């Protein structure tokens, strides 16, 4: 019996296979994330906001005028923990009820950018030649158009309504270009690596090579970018709502800031400052949570770290901690 005809000595049952898949694909990443304090803190923050956006509105009453006395300061009463506005609206209700549409906006913008950027960057980098130069010309043009001003002009000219998903895409309208450029330059180095060349010689189709050999290498970068885009959507949308140049049909953190400054002069009068401060803190904490999560989640894509955390993979690799001394 030749080597090629030999069968595996142990065969796995379906249940075992499922268990291994669960261990490698779900449990190991979860353990890695939990292992790192930054990722843990980031995860807690992000989950809190997700809960705030999904079940939060069920528990916190809808914001409306005259819920309480006017301009109660923050952390003074249990009833209005974050204070009230100049028309007596509960600031906590406003922040919570603004979260769902914010989450939709963030997801739409980040997914749009990452999918388009990765697709164009990989295609251009791997194909090269004519495809590359055409795609990169388009990318360079998009990259040199200033993002926020373009969003403002498009929002005005297109007369869009307040749909959060549309606004999310509009805010990141040309952010994919920067990602595509960066991905392309990484693909340019990967496409000449030995294992990619081996796959090519074995006659694998281009999509298989791209999906199996190229994209996994880019995953850390893509995740980082997903988070950066999420942050960019938060910053951009709140900023533009604050300026009052985007349409809205529900309360929004930026709209709150706009009202605080324009209706109560929150920058010059201390009694209204909390009205401005609370939405600002909301943004910063969410952005910080996303950044921390991205920093820790980075390690999920390191195969060595992964193997160490997976119970079903025999460890024994030579992964020594990086000490950084030379």
């Amino acid at each position, binding site marked *: 019996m030749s080597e090629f005809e030999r069968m595996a000595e142990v065969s796995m049952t379906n249940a075992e296979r499922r268990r291994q898949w669960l261990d490698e694909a779900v449990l190991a990443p979860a353990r890695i994330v939990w292992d790192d304090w930054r990722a843990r803190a980031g995860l807690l923050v992000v989950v809190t906001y997700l809960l705030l956006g999904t079940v939060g509105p069920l528990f916190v009453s809808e914001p409306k005028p005259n819920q309480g006395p006017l301009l109660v300061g923050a952390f003074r009463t249990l009833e209005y923990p974050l204070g009230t506005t100049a028309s007596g609206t509960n600031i906590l209700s406003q922040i919570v009820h603004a979260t769902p549409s914010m989450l939709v906006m963030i997801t739409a913008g980040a997914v749009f950018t990452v999918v388009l950027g990765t697709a164009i960057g990989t295609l251009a980098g*791997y194909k*090269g030649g004519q495809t590359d130069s055409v795609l990169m010309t388009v990318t360079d043009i998009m*990259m040199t*158009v*200033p993002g926020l*001003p373009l969003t403002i002009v498009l929002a005005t*000219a297109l007369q869009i309504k307040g749909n959060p998903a549309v606004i999310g895409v509009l805010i990141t309208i040309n952010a994919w270009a920067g990602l595509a450029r960066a991905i392309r330059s990484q693909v340019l180095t990967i496409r000449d690596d030995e294992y990619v060349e081996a796959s090519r010689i074995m006659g694998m189709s281009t999509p298989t090579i791209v999906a199996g050999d190229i994209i996994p290498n880019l995953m850390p970068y893509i995740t980082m970018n997903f988070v950066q885009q999420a942050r960019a959507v938060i910053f951009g949308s709140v900023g533009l709502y604050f*300026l009052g140049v985007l349409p809205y049909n529900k309360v929004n953190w930026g709209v709150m800031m706009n009202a605080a400054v324009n209706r109560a002069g929150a920058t010059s009068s201390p009694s209204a400052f909390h009205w401005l401060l609370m939405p600002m803190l909301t943004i910063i904490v969410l*952005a910080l949570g996303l950044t921390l999560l991205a920093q820790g989640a980075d390690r999920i894509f390191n195969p060595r770290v992964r193997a160490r955390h997976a119970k079903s993979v025999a460890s024994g690799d030579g992964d020594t901690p990086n000490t950084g001394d030379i």
Partner: protein
Amino acid sequence: MSYVLKRLGRSFLTIFVVVSASFGLIRLLPGGPLDYLRAQMIQQGGSDLSTAEINRRIAAQTNIAVDEPVYVQYIDYMTAIFRGDFGQSIWYDQSVAGVIGPAIPWTVFLTATALFLAFTVGVSLGAFMAYKEGSTFDVGSTGVGLVLNSTPGYVVALLFIAFLGYRLQLFPTGGRYASELTPGLNVPFLASVLYHGTLPILSMAIVAFGGWALSMRGNSIRVLGEDYLRVARLRGLPTRRIALRYVARNAILPMYTGLMIAIGTVFGGAVIIENIFAYPGIGFYLIQAINARDSPLMMGAFILITVAMVIGITVADLTYGWLDPRAKGGASRESY
């Protein structure tokens, strides 16, 4: 040389595409700015204005002659823009170029200073953090960098204006310079310009330098582990040469794409910052135009912001070729 020419050609192409797109936005969209302008005029002039008269006025304001075929309108619009004629502002009742032209240097002053400050401070700090990797200084700065990186510039601007502007009255809360001064090359005027520019510049720079420091730190640590650095040390090269030519150069190179994206971010951010500080730069007029429904002014501001940014990115790109000789060859060889 051909690299420079090609790069300049691409920059011109970008501007051409953006101006064409702005024509499309103004002209072709139903219910867009042009229709709005017409409705506005009919409302103002009542029924005494004939259609021809309205068309004539629209043409004067937007460079678009509505009764001509589309391609003629397009050519007219393009030639007018490239001659520097952006039409008439409705709100300010003077030419768009006359409104925005004087604002350009101010926006460039804010953004360029902020970008330069953030980049130099961030890169030096990041290199120093990498050098002291693991120390209290490194951990502390990383924390500060993370928090600053998660703060939008306008939040810092609002905090500045509330505390340093209104509460402590240390800095002015608006304007480009004290109004009693005569602009020119005199010390009081320049001092006043810096004084008024301090808060806007700082609010853009403070939130950006943390990001630069973090990526410089990461890159430097990576470079410090490379084999060629070990070789350089074994060759007994002076530390200064290793730090500048080997570590700094190779650590800064990957940040160049980031720098180009940052030029865009800073121009976008300036739109919000200028409005918070009531600083009459291009971004300030862009928002004024939108609030006043002044589409010629809006498109003019947008085109000029784009041109300013294209120039910035072209300059950055050309210096990249000088820093990294590999870039000139291009990766345009071969395809699979």
